[in-house]
């Protein structure tokens, strides 16, 4: 026999396999990497690497005027960009002390709840895809098209919307926009009901997701979880109720809460939240229809320093021309201040910590991104589970890479 080949020291003693659930992988939605150590098929540890899509938003924001920062916020959680846009506008309005009229608030609520529905439907259908059921995803994406068409009527873009301005919207909602909204309100509930019937009491789906990736309420709070993941663990913290913004206190809705924090609870919480969002949209739409006459034409607050004047005034009046010039060139200064303001994003509390020093752009703007904060818990959630559980946990946490990295 030939001489024995000796393996390098330590090679045979290694009991665990290291696999790389790499940055480009069909199951991870977004670019982030997990290095998972497996013992057989059970996970021993998982180490996350993020930062593949870091675009230096916080540094860029120090050199940009407020209306330019709206485009940066679009790209945080790109599945529900109007939520991020309005979160930023609400932060600026709180800094400047502007109160938006009720109609603006109600219109904003309609759009924000549509964005929440679009984010949750992606997350839930992707949980379905990751457990093998592909058709739910296809049927629900059709309704995302309807939501995109509504966004397009209002602001012109579909995905990264850059919607609205400090003080309100750029233009009034057209009748077509309302028509598309009515079509969505009519066609969406039956589709969601079909999706529910397919998944919620499905034996295979329940076996795949019950008991997978659970987290207790204390650990979740310690980890800084917010949003549907925290509510699935049993804590009913929702920024819309705790610190109401944009007139959420005028609406009647419930917050669904789970108990064990596993994937099935997260799925159900998001599902119920979609139904609740539909309730809010119906109530808001009715309230908007009640505005008559001149009030029905209000679509922004009066903020001459930050809201571009009407084009016909710009061409005829001197003041409007000067304001237009100043705003576009970014020469209107923000007051000195320091504010932390948050909105309920689709994934949790999206916070904006803004420090201004009287200049045209912020001195420091920090985004408190919910995904970034709760992704830390991933290794604890998947320890002891199987590899397929790791995939389902990752997709049920609704990790959007744009929000992880910013």
């Amino acid at each position, binding site marked *: 026999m030939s001489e024995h080949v000796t393996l390098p020291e330590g090679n045979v003693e290694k009991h665990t396999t290291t696999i790389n659930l790499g940055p480009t992988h069909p199951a991870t939605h977004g670019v982030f990497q997990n290095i998972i150590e497996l013992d057989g098929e059970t996970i021993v540890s998982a180490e996350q690497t*993020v*930062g593949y899509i*870091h675009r*230096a938003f*916080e*540094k*860029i924001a*120090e*050199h940009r005027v407020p209306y330019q920062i709206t485009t940066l916020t679009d790209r945080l959680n790109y599945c529900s960009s109007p939520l991020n846009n309005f979160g930023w506008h609400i932060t600026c309005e*709180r*800094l400047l002390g502007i109160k938006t009229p009720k109609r603006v608030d109600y219109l904003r609520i309609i759009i924000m709840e549509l964005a929440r529905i679009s984010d949750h439907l992606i997350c839930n259908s992707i949980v379905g895809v990751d457990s093998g059921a592909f058709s739910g995803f296809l049927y629900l994406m059709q309704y995302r098209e309807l939501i995109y068409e509504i966004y397009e009527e209002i602001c012109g873009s579909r995905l990264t919307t850059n919607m609205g301005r400090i003080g309100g919207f750029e233009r009034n909602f057209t009748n077509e926009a309302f028509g598309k909204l009515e079509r969505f309100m009519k066609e969406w509930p039956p589709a969601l009901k079909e999706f529910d019937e397919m998944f919620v009491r499905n034996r295979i789906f329940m076996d795949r997701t019950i008991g997978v990736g659970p987290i207790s309420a204390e*650990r979740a*709070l*310690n*980890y*800084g979880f917010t949003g549907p993941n925290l509510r699935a663990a049993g*804590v009913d*913290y929702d920024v819309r109720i*705790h*610190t109401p913004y944009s007139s959420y206190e005028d609406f009647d809705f419930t917050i669904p809460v789970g108990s064990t924090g596993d994937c099935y609870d997260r799925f159900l919480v998001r599902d119920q939240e979609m139904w609740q969002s539909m309730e809010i949209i119906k109530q808001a739409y009715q309230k908007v229809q009640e505005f008559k006459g001149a009030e029905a034409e209000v679509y922004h607050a009066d903020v001459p320093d930050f809201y571009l004047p009407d084009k016909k005034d710009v061409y005829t009046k001197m003041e409007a021309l000067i304001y237009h010039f100043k705003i576009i060139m970014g020469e209107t200064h923000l007051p000195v*201040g*320091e*504010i*932390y303001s*948050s909105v309920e994003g689709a994934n949790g*509390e999206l*916070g904006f*910590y803004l*420090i201004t020093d009287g200049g045209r752009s912020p*001195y*420091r703007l*920090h985004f*408190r991104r919910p995904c*970034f*904060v709760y*992704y*830390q*818990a991933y290794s604890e959630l998947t320890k002891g589970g199987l590899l397929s559980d790791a995939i389902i946990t990752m997709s049920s946490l609704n990790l959007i890479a744009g929000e992880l*990295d910013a």
Partner: protein
Amino acid sequence: MEKFGEELTGWEEPYGMLTFTSDKNLNLKVLQFLFDDPELGFQFMTDLTAVHYPNQEGKELAVVYHLHNLKENVRIRYKIFTNIQKPDVYTASALFSAANWMERETFDFFGVNFVGHPNLKRILNVEEMEYFPLRKEYPLEDQKRTDKDDEMFGRD
């Protein structure tokens, strides 16, 4: 606070959120007190970040903690200042697991060294980077690029 007395300074309330400062060596004690005290109960860490003030001698980097008392819905902001030459701050990750990655992010961008952190590596930038990008002295764009012609745009 009765317990800490004069060691807490800089009380102000911008836009309704109480803000205070203390010496950086006290940060763990203050955080623990805010966590444990039954009347205060700030058990949720909302945010941890840093701000660079290049003009304050000896206190250039400010680490800012945002805490939240979920039961009574009170938020509070706690700042500590540290010297940029020796930016050592005790880590809060033993108390709040949420602080783990937030401190890594603060280290990555500002260079604040969190003493006692289990895994203080860069998180969003490449590991080989030698500078700390969000400090004020680093420019927005890489000045060594030769392929962009900004003459027409008038950028700074």
